[in-house]
């Protein structure tokens, strides 16, 4: 009896068994959304300290094509002379993504070639590969190893190593990830190039709940390219998650006629 109670106590008090993949699965669930809107202001800071700040509104809607494929509409709202400039990305599960550009001065949309993983997102230090991880980490492409528990900005986090599986094309030879224990959001990432040299660092701060659906988001992220010295800081506000986004806005017609 005593043994039975002892075993039961041991089971109940043991830390939850976790491994790299399950941690990342929780992370993917924490970031997955049906739809999302919000405003973001990004500042590109060059190595010499020169800054360029742009504000845009983002609309994201999960498509019917796959669990982790989205439509994205990004619309500049500041500075004034570029307000209305928009890009529309339609992700596809089985074929190349489609991208469109709308320039108010031309009053027409132009189809543009789809961005590659390594392309910089809006000229920032964030690449399209980073962005896809932001929406849904492609956990099948990586082997995750849980390393230690380590606090980031005072918040407990799991530190993992992510190594690309054979055949996966990526800009990174490896990544070190810190997953916030409480929210399962990415708190910090170190990106290494294929030669093992540190390439970029990512830090997420100001993690707060969004609405009442149990979602959390970092309201400030910072991506620093340590090899070039350039940095991008992104401030988010007015997040709305799973509150409904009209599918019709993800079209060239909408961009041209709104």
């Amino acid at each position, binding site marked *: 009896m005593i043994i039975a109670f002892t075993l039961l106590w041991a089971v109940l008090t043991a830390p939850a068994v976790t491994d790299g993949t399950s941690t990342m699965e929780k992370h993917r669930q924490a970031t997955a959304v049906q739809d999302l809107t919000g405003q973001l202001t990004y500042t590109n800071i060059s190595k010499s300290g020169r800054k*360029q700040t742009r504000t845009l509104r983002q609309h994201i809607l999960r498509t019917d094509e796959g669990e982790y494929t989205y439509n994205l509409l990004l619309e*500049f709202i500041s*500075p004034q002379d570029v307000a209305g400039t928009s890009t529309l990305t339609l992700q596809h599960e089985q074929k190349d993504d489609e991208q469109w550009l709308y320039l108010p001065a031309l009053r027409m949309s132009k189809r*543009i*070639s789809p961005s590659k993983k390594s392309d910089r997102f*809006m000229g920032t230090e964030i690449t399209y590969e980073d962005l896809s991880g932001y929406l849904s980490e492609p956990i099948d492409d990586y082997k995750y190893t849980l390393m230690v528990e380590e606090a980031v900005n005072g918040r407990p986090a799991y530190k993992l190593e992510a190594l690309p599986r054979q055949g996966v094309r990526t800009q990174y030879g490896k990544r070190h990830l810190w997953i916030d224990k409480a929210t399962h959001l990415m708190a910090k990432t170190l990106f290494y190039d294929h030669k093992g040299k540190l390439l970029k660092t990512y830090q997420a701060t100001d993690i707060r709940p969004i609405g009442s659906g149990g979602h959390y988001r970092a309201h400030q992220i910072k991506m620093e390219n340590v*090899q070039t010295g*350039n940095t991008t800081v992104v401030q988010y506000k007015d997040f709305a998650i799973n509150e409904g986004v009209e599918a019709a806005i993800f079209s060239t017609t909408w961009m041209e006629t709104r």
Partner: protein
Amino acid sequence: MKIRYNLLSLHALPQKLSERVASRRAYPCSLQTYSDTKPFTPKTMHIFQPLLRLSYIRPKTTLLALFAITLLMAGGLSRLETRNSFDGELPTDDPINQGIEAAKEVFGERSVVLIGLEAASIYSPEAAQKVIDLSNALSEVPYVMPDEIVSLSTLANVSQRPWGLETGGFLDTLPADEAAWQQLRSDVAGNGMVLDRLVSADESLTVIAAALEDGFDGGVVYDAVSKLANHYADPERIHITGAPVLVEDVQRGISGDSRRFIPIAIVLIFIGFYISFRRLAGVLLPVGMVIMSIIWTMGFMGYAGLPVTVVSNALPVIMVAVASSYAIHFMNAYYRLADQHGSGTALAEATLQKIGLPILITGLTSALGSASLLIFKITSLREFGIIGAVGFLLATFICLTFLPAVCALLKPPARKAYQSAALQRFLYALTQMAQNHRRAIIGAYLLLIATAVFFIGQVKIGDDYLKFFPKSHPGRVAAETFNDRLSGVRNMDIVVDAAAYGGIKDERFFRSLNDFQDYLLSYQEVGHTYSYRDVVQHLSANLNDGTDALPGSAEIAQYLMLHEMSATPGEVFALRSEDDNQARVQVFLKSSDPEVHQALYENIQADAARFFPEGNTSLTFGGDVMHRIALGTYIVEGKVQNIILALLIVFLSCLIIFRSLPKSLMALLPITVSLLMVFGLMGMIGIRLGISTALLTAMIVGVGVDFAVHYLVGYFRDREEMGATEAITHNSLHTGQAIAYDAASNIAGFSVLSFSGFLPVQHFGWLLALSMLLIFINTLVLYPVMLRQPARQRTAAEAILTPN
């Protein structure tokens, strides 16, 4: 105060010498038997201070102390730093420098290394793959900014396609079939920012450009880039160039040739010493003195934090010339007095008495002459002024302590002083010719001076780095290939200020800038211009089905936004300021001639108001050619001031020494005439006045004043004992002999440098040799002409040359 005391003491020298006149006249005067057997009296001892007396009274202690100081100064050698960069060469308050700094502040002006890949066609898988590989490899080169590498494989491009816009890089992937290669060709041909700038029209050359961080080490970059070039060469040809590479090529060329030729020159100079004195000690003692002088001076540079630059690199040569001049006069006097003294100490003391003061005076005047370089506003020339002044003082000190100390320990030479009969005959003939043909010589000199003055007006200013190299030099071949097939390797940046936040997006400003760039392209030497105008025009053409209509303000803003979305921050901020109130126009130049750059700069300044008439648009100039333009301006301004100041210093020094206005003016004569002749010759045969040739003045003044002072001191001393004609001849034969030894050995040594394949070393070498010859001839011809008193008889002079 000690120096002042010594200098003033010279005034008393003729009086002291006059005491010996009576006995002097009793000496037999002949070429074979004449010697300077002037008894030195205790009265003259006070001229030399106890420190100098110590050298022969306590020679071992003196040598030990000198050895200890040499060890101490050698410690400074390890602290020596090299400065290859031209940054900081200009004064901070200079308007051009302020412009360069202002452009740098906003646009982060960078030095750019250019790698050219030359192939039968760059549109082949092998060549294209090398462009990709070289671009990747360059990002690993120290000081290269990885996001500021521009090549076909890194540059984003927007090209119109039937389905929309292609927004990738030119070589994101290698074209897979002939259609894809044709598409690449067509994309390049349709992009005015790439054709002729990155890819030659004949498809045989493409460029990979890499911007370097501020404060880069040129040597490290050069080595790494050369290694890449060697690795990727064959069958393609890889060229490396760009301002940092050219500067390093120049530096290495000068240093390499200097390392090869200067030791040979020094050996030849000392062989000349041996031929002059015919004694080993006559070579070894000057060698020891010169080596010590160089160690002390370079040690001082190390301790004082004065770096080795392209200018101070010449220090060993200059020290050899100047310091050996002190030594040769000392040794000449030493051997002349040798048969008059029974002990080494007495001989050393007598030598010091005879020649110490002229050496001290020439050391001080040479140091002051070098200090006159401080009038230049170019940092490396100012630094050299300090180094030279200290070096010459140290050499004087070493000469007046080391040589007497060693001589005091040696037994006086048994043999008589060697006199070359041929040299004596030559000196005699020269002196007689000068005295007998005064009018013809003065006429010839006036003609020569007038010709020189005429050609001085034609001296070209500034260094054309490309012409420094022989035609086959890889650096020159690379630069000429880029100039011929692409837009050129030199660049001028023009920052145009729209004077309002976001002003560069204004369509009126854009139109003005568009016209301004078209105007710049009308110059033959301008290969290409690049600014945000080109980005906007390219996007406008591709988004509007090839239109060449100028866009409106909203379109400009949105096209720039589009550019931001695809370009790196480095690319964006290279074209526009943070507040979009300033635009940078890069002007690529096919010429490396600094005078062409200067003329272009002046024309643009004069014409700018045509394009930006509002009056509130200012132009600021930057880029590597502006450094050279400013350097050229300062070289000219500084050179004139430097010559005037150097002559003034020599004049004032001589005024203190001789206490006579005519004598002091006379001291300037051979220096001034030699300066005019050398610069006139430079103008006549097209040798440029650049940083290195600017040093010739220091050499001419430094050595010229030695010859003049030695000659005049010798003459006035002899004059106390004999008539003018006799004194001239006597002095020309004896002081003239030392001057001849000095000039001949230096001419032989420095002539070797003219075999260098590197033009600055070549010019420096033979101009230096020629300067020595001119100073020698001008001293030995002009002084007899000026000093001769026609009424006097020449019997005494003739008596000197009459055998017993």
